[in-house]
């Protein structure tokens, strides 16, 4: 079982994947020029764990900004998570957004429609 921890920067989010705890967290800004390259370690880790996960998985997306180049990678991550669910895994997806950020809420709604798994839409406290 592989875990992953990537510290956030001005352009890239903090990523935590803990297979024992069943936690995947993506938090911060995701606006790199080359998103595919940035998210590759996460994909590799998820793929290598996909068949071995026995614990339920909680996925937390808490993004402040993400660019269109990241939007495709986010979809691919969600598709991978969806495939874990299809394989019999227990998956919870939390999508956090600021109360006045309708665009972030809409993005979450679009993603849940595409992958056909309901998200828990979580409003972040103001401030």
């Amino acid at each position, binding site marked *: 079982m592989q875990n992953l921890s990537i510290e956030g920067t001005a*352009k890239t989010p903090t990523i935590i994947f803990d297979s024992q705890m069943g936690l995947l967290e993506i938090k911060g800004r995701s606006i790199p*020029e080359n998103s595919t390259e940035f998210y590759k370690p996460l994909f590799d880790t998820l793929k290598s764990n996909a068949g071995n996960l026995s614990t339920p998985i909680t996925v937390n997306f808490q993004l402040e*900004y993400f660019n269109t180049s990241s939007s*495709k990678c986010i979809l691919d991550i969600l598709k991978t998570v969806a495939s874990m669910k299809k394989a019999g895994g227990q998956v919870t997806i939390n999508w956090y957004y600021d109360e006045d*950020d309708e665009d972030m809420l809409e993005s979450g709604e679009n993603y849940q429609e*595409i992958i056909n798994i309901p998200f828990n839409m979580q409003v972040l406290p103001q401030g």
Partner: protein
Amino acid sequence: MISDISDFYTQNKNEKTIVSFLGEIVPDHITEIMQRLEDNLEMLNEHTKIKRKLYNILIEALQNLYHHADDPNLNDNVQSPNAICLVDSCTDCYKILTGNYIKNDKIKAFENKLDKINQLSEDELKQYYLEVLKNGEKSLKDGAGLGMIEICRKTDNKLNFEFVTLNDNYSLFILKIKISK
């Protein structure tokens, strides 16, 4: 008459400009420009919603420059500016202006793509965005992808662009974006 990108920059920078860039568009410069925008909007006490919108739009506009700007100076040893970006704070709106070199033979396909985006209604634009998100941008390789669609969606306006011919090989692609305060 505009002779090159530096000329265009000088003609458009003004007393309302809060962020200005003339140079080679590389990731580090994009980070600096975004930081300057954030700092200035903070100083202006701008509302979170407007800050967020400007930030989202500017990153797409800059990364569009990064991915698509052509460089007529490639054979020179010195690195010359290949892109500009200006953000003006006006009374009732912010104006973003970007400019980059484009090879003349790429204009037609790019213009068609932008025209297609501009013909779509708000709902159609959303469907188009989702379609490209789901199916990938490979089929759109010769022009605007999600970035341009997103700029159009976020501004609630049509894309305002023009091509200024510089010589037989290159033109300037100019994009003007208006965001209401």
